[in-house]
C-alpha cells in the first residue's frame, strides 16, 4: 500500500462519491459529487467505478504527496493549473506520482470543483453504501468533515498502467434547463415569466447544500409556507424573501418552501460549476425532453471508457518507459512524429 498525503488544501474540499441513497425516508442526506460527470471521468481514467470515492477539491488550490510508493491519480472538472515539480499536468489526464513527488493544483479557473481520483479509489467505512462526506451530519469516511492539511489516504500502489487522457464532450452552453414544478401553481404567470426571463447570479454565500440566486424577487401566490414535502437534487425553492435557492447535494430531505421548478439531471453539474457572479438564465423544457437528456447523460457516463486515449505528454511516457528499463527500445521503435510535447490538447 502507498499513502497519499494532503499536504495543503483549501476550504470546501471533501471526499465525495455517487451519493448515499436508500435512507432519505429517515432524513439521511444524499450528498455526493457536485459534478457527477467530472467525478466519473476522473475515476474512469484510473480504472475505478465511475462513482467511486474521490477528492472533491473546492475553488482554492491543493497539494498531494505520495509516500511509501507510487500513487496513480487523475484529475477532471473545473480547470486549473497542475504540475509535478514544475512539469505541467493536463486536466482530464491520469498521472503517476512517484514516492515523494507532489502534485500541485492551483485555483479553479472558472467553475469550482475539480475531482482527484486515485487508482483503486479512496477506502473507508461506507454508511448506506457511501463514503460521501456530509459534515453537518458527521457522516463520511475516512474523514467525516472537510479535508485538512495533514490528512492522508491509504491507497493502492500504482499499477504502472499507461497514462490516459479522456476526451469529454464540450460542455453545453446556454441556459440551465428546468422542468416546472412541483409547486409552480404557487406562482402566477407573471412571476413564472420573471423566473424564466431574468438573468440570475449565484451568490457567494452558496455551498454544497444550496445555491442562493441573486436577481429579481419572485412573489408567491399564497405565501411562502407550504406543508413540508420531499426535495430532490436541483429543486428550486422560493423562500419568503423571494430569492430562489437551488437545492444541491447536501440538501435536507424535506422542505417547506414552494418549489417553482427543478433543474434537469443533465444540467446540475453545469450549474454546480457556474462561478459566483456569472449571469445565467433558466429555460423550461418538457418532461419528455428532460428525460431524453437524462438518458443521454446516463449513457455518456456509461460509455466514458470509450473516450479514453493514450496520454500524449511525452515527458511522462519517457519516464515511465525509462522506469521499466525499456526506454531505449521503445523510443527507437516509435515514429518521432507521434510524440507531442503539449501539456494541453
Amino acid at each position: 500500500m502507498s499513502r497519499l498525503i494532503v499536504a495543503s488544501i483549501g476550504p470546501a474540499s471533501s471526499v465525495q462519491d455517487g451519493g448515499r441513497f436508500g435512507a432519505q425516508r429517515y432524513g439521511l442526506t444524499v450528498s455526493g459529487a457536485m459534478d457527477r460527470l467530472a467525478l466519473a471521468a476522473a475515476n474512469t481514467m484510473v480504472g475505478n467505478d465511475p462513482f467511486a470515492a474521490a477528492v472533491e477539491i473546492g475553488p482554492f488550490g491543493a497539494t498531494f504527496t505520495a509516500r511509501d510508493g507510487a500513487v496513480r491519480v487523475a484529475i477532471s472538472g473545473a480547470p486549473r493549473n497542475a504540475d509535478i515539480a514544475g512539469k505541467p499536468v493536463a486536466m482530464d489526464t491520469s498521472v503517476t506520482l512517484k514516492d515523494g513527488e507532489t502534485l500541485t493544483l492551483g485555483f479553479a479557473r472558472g467553475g469550482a470543483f475539480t475531482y482527484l481520483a486515485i487508482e483503486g479509489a479512496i477506502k473507508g467505512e461506507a454508511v448506506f453504501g457511501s463514503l460521501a462526506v456530509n459534515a453537518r451530519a458527521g457522516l463520511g469516511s475516512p474523514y467525516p468533515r472537510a479535508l485538512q492539511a495533514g490528512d492522508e489516504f491509504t491507497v493502492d500502489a500504482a499499477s504502472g498502467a499507461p497514462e490516459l487522457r479522456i476526451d469529454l464532450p464540450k460542455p453545453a452552453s446556454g441556459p440551465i434547463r428546468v422542468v416546472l414544478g412541483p409547486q409552480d401553481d404557487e406562482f402566477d404567470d407573471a412571476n413564472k415569466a420573471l423566473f424564466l426571463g431574468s438573468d440570475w447570479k449565484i451568490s457567494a454565500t452558496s455551498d454544497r447544500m444550496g445555491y442562493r440566486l441573486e436577481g429579481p424577487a419572485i412573489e408567491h401566490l399564497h405565501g411562502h409556507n407550504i406543508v413540508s414535502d420531499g426535495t430532490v437534487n436541483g429543486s428550486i425553492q422560493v423562500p419568503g424573501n423571494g430569492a430562489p435557492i437551488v437545492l444541491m447535494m447536501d440538501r435536507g430531505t424535506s422542505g417547506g418552501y414552494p418549489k417553482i421548478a427543478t433543474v434537469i439531471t443533465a444540467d446540475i453539474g453545469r450549474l454546480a460549476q457556474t462561478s459566483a457572479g456569472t449571469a445565467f438564465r433558466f429555460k423550461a423544457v418538457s418532461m419528455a425532453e428532460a428525460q431524453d437528456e437524462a438518458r443521454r447523460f446516463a449513457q455518456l457516463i456509461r460509455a466514458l471508457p470509450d473516450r479514453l486515449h493514450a496520454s500524449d505528454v511525452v515527458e511522462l511516457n519517457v519516464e515511465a518507459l525509462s522506469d521499466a528499463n525499456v526506454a531505449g527500445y521503445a523510443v527507437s521503435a516509435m515514429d518521432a512524429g507521434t510524440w507531442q510535447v503539449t501539456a494541453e490538447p
Partner: protein
Amino acid sequence: MAPTLPPPRLLPSGDSAVTVEFSRTIDDAANERVLALDKALAASPIEGICETIPTYRSLLVHYDPGKIGFDALGEKLLAIARQPLPPSTKARRWRIPVAYGGEHGIDLEDVAKALKTTPDDIVARHSGGDYRVAMIGFTPGWSYLSGLDKSLHMSRRQSPRLFTPAGTISIGGIQAGIQCLAAPSGWHLLGRTPVRTYQLHRSPTFLTEPGDRVTFFAIDHKTFEELDRAAEAGEIVAEQVDA
C-alpha cells in the same frame, strides 16, 4: 370511515422523481393514504423506482428514467393511489421517556405562561397525547408527529434558535417532534429524551418508521442520565408495545 379527499395529483419533481400529492394541508387521512401507497410499493415494487419518501401529504418517488418514463410510472402510481385503503394493520407503538422542563426543556415554563396554565399541566397534556409518526425528515431521525393536543397548538418562536440539543422533544404549530441530532429549531423545547431515533452502528440504525404510534412518559433527570448512558452504549431505551 370515508375521508373526503380530492383525487391524488402527480407533481413533476424534475426528470427523475415525481410527487404523488394527496392533500395540500396536514391531514391524517391524507397521511394514511401516503403511507398506504408507500407500503403498497414496498410490497409489489414497480421496476425503475429507486427510493420513496413519505411526507405529511405526499409521497416523493425517485425513479430511473432509463427504466420507466414519467407517463407510464404516473399511470401506475395513480392506479394504486386510487385503490381503497387496505384494512389498517396493527402499528407499532413506542413509549418514549422524556425528562421535562429545567435544563432539558427550557421553554416549558414560557409555554405554560403563554397558555395560562402550569408546567405540570403542559407535561400532562403532552405526555397524555396519542401520536403518529407522519414523516421523518430535515435531519436524520427527526420524527414529525401528528396528534398534538389542540390546546397545545401555538405558533413557532419569533426567532429560531441556532442550536437545540440532541434528543429535544418539542412542539411547533400543530406538530410535535422527536429530534435526534443537535440542530437549529424554531420550535418550543419541552424536554429531552435519551432515546436515539438514529444511531449509526446500532441495529436498527433508525428506530422510528412513518406510521408508528408514539406516546411519551415523564422521567426524572437522574433517570435521564442513566438511560442516556445506556442509549450511548447502543441500547434502545424506548419501550415497544403493540398499538
